[in-house]
């Protein structure tokens, strides 16, 4: 019944996107996440963290597709992504 009420295509299809969290002071500035992000969401920040490294910074938050590669490849457990529904 629901399908009759809401015809296919009427509702905007959900897109999965991610919300990137960076734990700045844990980062050792290896740039793995920046290099391997398929959609270039991250960039090297100009700021230093406590240890004198340049942590990444999210520059294109809307481009994140929650692929999780940055989280997987980060050797310092300093970055993670949480699934977020796009409104």
């Amino acid at each position, binding site marked *: 019944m629901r399908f009759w009420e809401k015809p296919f295509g009427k509702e905007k299809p959900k897109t999965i996107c991610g919300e990137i969290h960076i734990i700045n002071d844990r980062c*050792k500035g290896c740039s*793995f996440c920046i290099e391997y992000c398929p959609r270039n969401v991250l960039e090297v920040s100009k700021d230093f963290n406590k240890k004198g490294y340049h942590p990444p910074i999210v520059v294109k938050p809307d481009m994140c597709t929650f692929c999780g590669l940055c989280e997987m490849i980060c050797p310092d*457990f300093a970055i993670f992504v949480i699934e977020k529904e796009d409104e």
Partner: protein
Amino acid sequence: MANNTAQLQEKSHPMEDLLRMDRMPHIWCSGCGLGSAVTAFVEGLKKAGVSYDKTAIVSGIGCTGRVAGYLRLDSYHTTHGRAIPFATGLKLANRDLTVVVFSGDGDLFAIGGNHLIHAARRNVDINVICVNNFIYGMTGGQNAPTTPLGAYSSTAPFGNYEMPFNLVGLAAASGASYVARWTTMHARRLTDSIATAANKKGFCFIEIVSPCPTVFARKNKGGTGLDMLKEFQTRAIIDHDADPTTIPLNMDNEIVCGEFVNDDRPTFWENVQAGIKARLEKFANWEEMQSNSRKISHKKDRKYTSSRDSSIMRRNT
């Protein structure tokens, strides 16, 4: 944006239930692949669905030897090279455990090489994850049994003269049930491999090729960790059908990755049980023999204390 990031930091990393956060940050260098390997391991464990309470991790000595200390599992940081026999004892004395050895190439294949081949031969039900960075990292870049021919190290200033071990070939030839090789760049495939191994019976061996920017790259003009990772990316190919004994790692050849062996062989413990059962059935009168000999030797009127007061000097006193 900066504001936003600060706010987001309050949320905790999803791996924190399996990491000892009170020990972070870890001691590994910037650009080292070990952290990625640990992430893959944690994700692999989650994927495998094993109970964390029933998972034990054993490490030897070295950079990779510190892994046990960062994982919130029953974790044992043992002596140099002896993680595998320790893990064998742990597993055999409590067969409910999933026992993982996480150690480096020097620990597992130089000082501990004998233990590795014998554990693989026995097919003890443990998983061995070897992080191969081609060099001794913690002690300052000395030659390892995996250092490629011609590569420089602090004990090979003229280039390494020795042929390196092909780890997957050695493990497969020794009889491992599962053998795979990945680089830290193959994060997802590595995770899958670790999950497969966690649920697989028998001796499972996974080699993780990992960048060591601080000593290996510096001595061999490898650049940063990122440069090494990029190099792995260009050199790595995936070939599950490759014969593991024919794919050694050199300075510039292809890094053949894949799951090379995935067999089902009876494990050590299965063989033990089968052997005992067969033997006891053959000698069904064993029990009878035992009770017979007891009947003769165990007379009622004899005191148990007869020779227990070992007063050796009775004659003299």
